[in-house]
């Protein structure tokens, strides 16, 4: 069940500080200059495309990436562990119709890059095409905040933030026995070069803060946590955010002592505004990623332009919200990310596309072509997925429920794309009895079917909120950062995986 336990390379990073980091310079000269330090130049690009297009590919792309990230951890009162990681490499993709060849190398020499291109090119089988001779850069929007780039901030400046959270948490309640704090920053730099000669250069920061607590009361113990994330520099770690994430972690932990597991069975569920966006992500988001539909394996495959939800439901996937964890200036295929309306007043309007699926459907790509790193070919992926506000007063929504549950915080979810069944896990919430929130509940999974739940989402609140948590979405073994948003909604009936008294 476990392989060699090695250093935790997932959180960390270091070394090779980005020069001039902070200036959001999207000029191609800057892109080539940045990777020039590792040996990348126009001659290498031309040589790589020569090989990539040697067997009649429709198009090809090179994805250069350099990422430096750090993780600091506080445990038992001390900031006494740090992890750093550096990744560098290029992925070469060669596309023929909807067939792809992919290879990557971590060695940015001309030989290694052309060898990777030659391997990827084997997917095609035809006469060669001309490689681009000139490269031009596209101007990108600016959706990240980077007033204080992480390259300019040392460990000593970060440590007091973790210590402060530890103090605040222990000051909040004498019942706390353990606190762990995680501080993570990442500075990613990507250069996407397409076989049209177009280049996109983007610096993508990420800040993340997580707190977990264990408390003890009357011989019982409970644990819970909270986290926040965004595409910002060091300024992300403001006093307000430090206070908020600490309060959430402590309150959720203490809440659990008064809570019991929910009842089992089918009942109405009210989802609190914000992180309940996990419902959309699982229930319909993945099913609307165009690759599953192109292959006929999504439950939404034949539902385009049909009504799939009540009239007051509009669902959006959006890469443009400034500084959000799910925001991107440009996707990992060089397409500027957009605001994409998936469901408009209940009608399914479009899927989320990457280049391959857009070509298949004869539409423009939507900027959803994302990948975990240069080691992966891009796929249609969500960015920030949310439901727009409706007209109902959230209190009215709770009052409308005779017996059901109110779901307030969530930890994770999953979906089977084809069958449409999905789940999400409620960490904290309340029982609703006669229109009032009563007994606190915890640790309960919800299971439903996407299309079915959409038609049963019959009340939409006017209190839309984004969630600023550190959500990470997994698909085909690739993780990407995403965001969520939701107003308070009522689902008239869904299966609650609780326990009934026997």
């Amino acid at each position: 069940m476990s392989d060699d336990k090695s250093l935790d390379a997932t959180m960390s990073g270091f070394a090779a500080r980005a020069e001039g980091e902070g200036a959001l310079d999207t000029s191609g000269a800057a892109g080539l200059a940045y990777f020039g330090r590792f040996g990348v130049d126009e001659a290498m690009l031309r040589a790589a495309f020569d090989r990539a297009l040697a067997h009649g590919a429709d198009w090809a792309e090179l994805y250069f990436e350099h990422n430096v990230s750090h993780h600091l951890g506080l445990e038992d009162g001390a900031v006494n562990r740090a992890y750093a990681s550096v990744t560098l490499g290029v992925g070469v993709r060669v596309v023929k119709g909807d067939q792809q060849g992919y290879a990557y190398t971590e060695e940015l020499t001309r030989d290694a890059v052309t060898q990777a291109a030659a391997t990827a090119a084997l997917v095609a089988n035809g006469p060669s095409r001309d490689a681009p001779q000139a490269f031009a850069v596209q101007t990108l929007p600016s959706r990240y905040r980077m007033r204080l780039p992480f390259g300019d901030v040392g460990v000593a400046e970060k440590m007091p933030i973790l210590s402060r959270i530890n103090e605040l948490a222990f000051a909040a309640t004498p019942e706390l026995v353990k606190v762990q704090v995680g501080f993570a920053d990442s500075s990613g730099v990507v250069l996407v070069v397409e076989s049209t000669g177009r280049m996109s250069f983007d610096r993508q920061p990420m800040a993340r803060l997580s707190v977990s607590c264990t408390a003890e009361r009357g011989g019982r113990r409970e644990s819970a946590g909270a986290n926040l994330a965004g595409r910002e520099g060091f300024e992300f770690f403001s006093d307000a955010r430090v206070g908020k994430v600490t309060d959430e972690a402590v309150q959720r932990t203490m809440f659990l002592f008064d809570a019991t597991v929910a009842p089992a069975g089918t009942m109405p569920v009210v989802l609190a505004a914000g992180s309940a966006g996990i419902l959309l992500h699982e229930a319909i988001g993945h099913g609307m990623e165009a690759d599953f539909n192109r292959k006929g394996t999504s439950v939404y495959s034949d539902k385009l332009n049909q009504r799939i939800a009540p009239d007051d439901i509009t669902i959006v996937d959006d890469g443009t919200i400034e500084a959000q964890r799910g925001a991107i200036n440009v996707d990992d295929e060089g397409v500027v990310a957009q605001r994409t309306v998936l469901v408009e007043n209940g009608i399914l309007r479009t899927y989320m596309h990457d280049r391959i699926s857009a070509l298949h459907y004869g539409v423009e790509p939507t900027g959803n072509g994302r990948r975990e790193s240069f080691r992966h070919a891009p796929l249609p992926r969500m960015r920030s997925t949310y439901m727009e506000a409706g007209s109902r007063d959230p209190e009215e929504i709770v009052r409308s429920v005779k017996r059901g549950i109110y779901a307030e915080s969530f930890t994770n979810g999953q979906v089977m794309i084809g069958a449409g069944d999905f789940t999400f896990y409620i960490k904290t919430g309340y029982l609703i009895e006669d229109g009032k929130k009563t007994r606190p509940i915890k640790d309960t999974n919800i299971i439903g079917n996407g299309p079915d739940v959409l038609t049963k989402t019959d009340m939409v609140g006017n209190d839309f909120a984004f969630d600023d948590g550190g959500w990470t979405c997994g698909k085909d073994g690739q993780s990407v950062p995403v965001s969520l948003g939701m107003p308070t909604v009522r689902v008239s009936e869904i299966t609650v995986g609780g326990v009934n008294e026997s």
Partner: protein
Amino acid sequence: MDELLRAAHEAAKQAQACGADEAKAAVVRSRGVDLEWRDGKLEKVQERTRRALSIELYVDGRYGASSTNDLRPEAVGPFIADAVAMTRLLEPDPHRALPDPARYGGRADVDLDLFDPAVNEVSSEERLALCRDLEVMARDGAGDLPVVSVATGVGDGFSQSARVHTNGFEGAREGSSFSFSAMVTVKDVDGRRPMGWDFTYRRHRADLAPAERIARVAREKAAAQLGAGKLATGKYTIAVDSRAVPRLISAFLAPLSGPSLQQRRSLWEGRLGEKVASELLTIYDDPLLPRGLGSALWDGDGFATRRRPLVEQGVLCTYLIDDYYARKMGVEPTGADTHNFEWTLGTDDLEGLVRDVGCGVLIERFLGGNTNQTTGELSFGCAGRVIRDGKLAEPVAEVNLSGNLATLWGRLVAVGNDPNPDSSAACPSCVFEGMQLSGI
């Protein structure tokens, strides 16, 4: 391999030259190819070639770790120097130290046979042919089955790693892996498109399951989901298919870890030597299984591994505490890693278990959900088949299993004779009684 060991020694030496008192260094290199095939044609071919250097540093009573894949000589020097400088700035941790070298000794003198030279001989034509054949086999015999898509995959590769600690540990190893899979998606009358899939995954090419079986099982699993309905909420006896049991056993074992115990987040705290599960539950961990997917002569601390019981007749035999958390807790380290599980098996296969259940539910897959490691509460989505008169009946979906880890494993009433050879957990099918399932 010698080259990797040399690189690890060199990195550790450089760390000490930069001011580290002690260091661990590991170098890994891997290579592999994956093919994805769908509906009559190649969809994606991907080649993976990775390498990385990881170092753990002990500097003035402080601890830090770093990793990089930028192995240019001019980059590695500054990387290590920065890592040491970063570590020096942290708060001290009196429990951080290299493990006692005495624990490195006693390494088993056996050939685990983890590397199959055939990995260097697989041709792209062979991979392509297997992908194509798997699809043909999956579609053959589909009859009237409303198949919308068949996807298959083939992969192979190897990895090599070397690890060095400055107080005397040194080790290098390599392993190969081979796998293939089939996925069949069918369209139900209500528009649902359930998918059935199966795979095989081994160290040696010759040990892979027959392609015909993988293709057939994927098709049968898809067909079995057609017409799925909901289940009435209630308490049931459940049989859990061997492929789904890992979810339940890994949830059971996770709270045994050092961080869970030391951070007071474990329902198993204080339960060592006590009965924590049904006496039918006996699991040994065998790190020395030849060709085992999880086999290893040493663990993450460099300690020599040995076969040992995890749970014997329901009694908890060990925690899984690494060297660092053992120092923090003031106990002896027990080794944090698990390798290959060896269950005490029953006598029936899944069909026999289902017959004995008589009336209940077979859970074939889990979907999402989570556990509370501190209290043991669990709640998982699932799907499977109703068991009626000792036989599999109609499929059910949108079901949820809820309970507590201690209660669940306490109510284990039968263990199958069908351990899954394509997983290091080697789980057999299991039967639990009196479990809460939610549906309508």
